[in-house]
């Protein structure tokens, strides 16, 4: 504070040169207190209830829980999308007889799709058999 002041201000000091009539403040205080208008004052409970204090935190927790649930539901939907099989995967699965029967029993896939998948599986089986035969021949040649 002292370093902030200039030489001029140090010379003048803190007296601004203003004065007030004698007993001004005592008279003012009395007059002011007596002339206060009528106002309605509502009593307030100084201490907030436990719920009032915890309410914002409860609301925030509920909000986060809601967001978490929404994310869960959203993830569930994307997961179920991932379980859809490609035609090739179905065909490979169908090549195993027990799987094919189970799939036919439980699947909502149309009959045409099942027949086509089954035919595909037979085609792939033949390919596998042919390639294994040719490999066997090559081994014999070696």
């Amino acid at each position, binding site marked *: *504070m002292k370093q902030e002041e*200039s030489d*001029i201000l140090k010379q*003048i000091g803190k007296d601004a040169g*203003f004065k007030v009539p004698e007993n001004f403040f005592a008279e003012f205080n009395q007059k002011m207190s007596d002339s206060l208008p009528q106002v309605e*004052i*509502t009593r307030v409970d100084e201490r907030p209830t436990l719920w009032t204090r915890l309410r914002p935190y409860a609301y925030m927790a509920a909000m986060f829980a809601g967001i978490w649930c929404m994310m869960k539901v959203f993830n569930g939907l994307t997961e179920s999308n991932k379980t859809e099989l490609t035609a090739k995967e179905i065909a490979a699965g169908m090549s195993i007889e027990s799987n094919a029967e189970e799939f036919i029993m439980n699947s909502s896939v149309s009959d045409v799709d099942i027949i086509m998948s089954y035919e595909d599986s037979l085609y792939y089986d033949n390919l596998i058999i042919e390639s294994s035969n040719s490999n066997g021949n090559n081994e014999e040649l070696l």
Partner: protein
Amino acid sequence: MAGKYIYDEALVVEQLHDPGQAREAFGKVIEHYSQALYWQIRRMVFDHDDASDILQNTFIKAWTNIDNFRGDAKLSTWLHKIAINESITFINKKKAQNNIPLDSDDSFLANTLESDPWFDGDATQLQLQRAIASLPEKQRLVFNMRYFDEMKYEDMSEILGTSVGALKASYHHAIKKIESFFTEND
């Protein structure tokens, strides 16, 4: 001998919200703050009668809005804010009456100081008041609060809603301008 009353702000604030004790409690508030608020206002408007009227308006406004005061801020901060707003409103009205643009400084207020019966300053004190009046309103407030009232920057910050750094800069600028005013008018 009657014991001197000790002002307990927390107790007074509690009483202000009790319909049965509010009026008496506000009397204590008036007694406690009238001088500080008066000088704050007087240094803004210069004239004693105007300062007295503004002080009265300040207390009336505070009393009629006492229900809105919940004790989140300090009572002194709240009262000083009201006093400053009332002072600025008064100065702006006076500017309008005298056809002075609102954005100009408040130098016109110091013109009547010489003939004011409630000003007994010497030539240098009068010059200082003229220099202060030539400052922008906010700088004037900051200078008065800091220099005359020796108010802490933190308290000023709460009242004026300005950062401590900005207030320090404002005070520094005010001093520089006052020095220049004295140099130019020597």
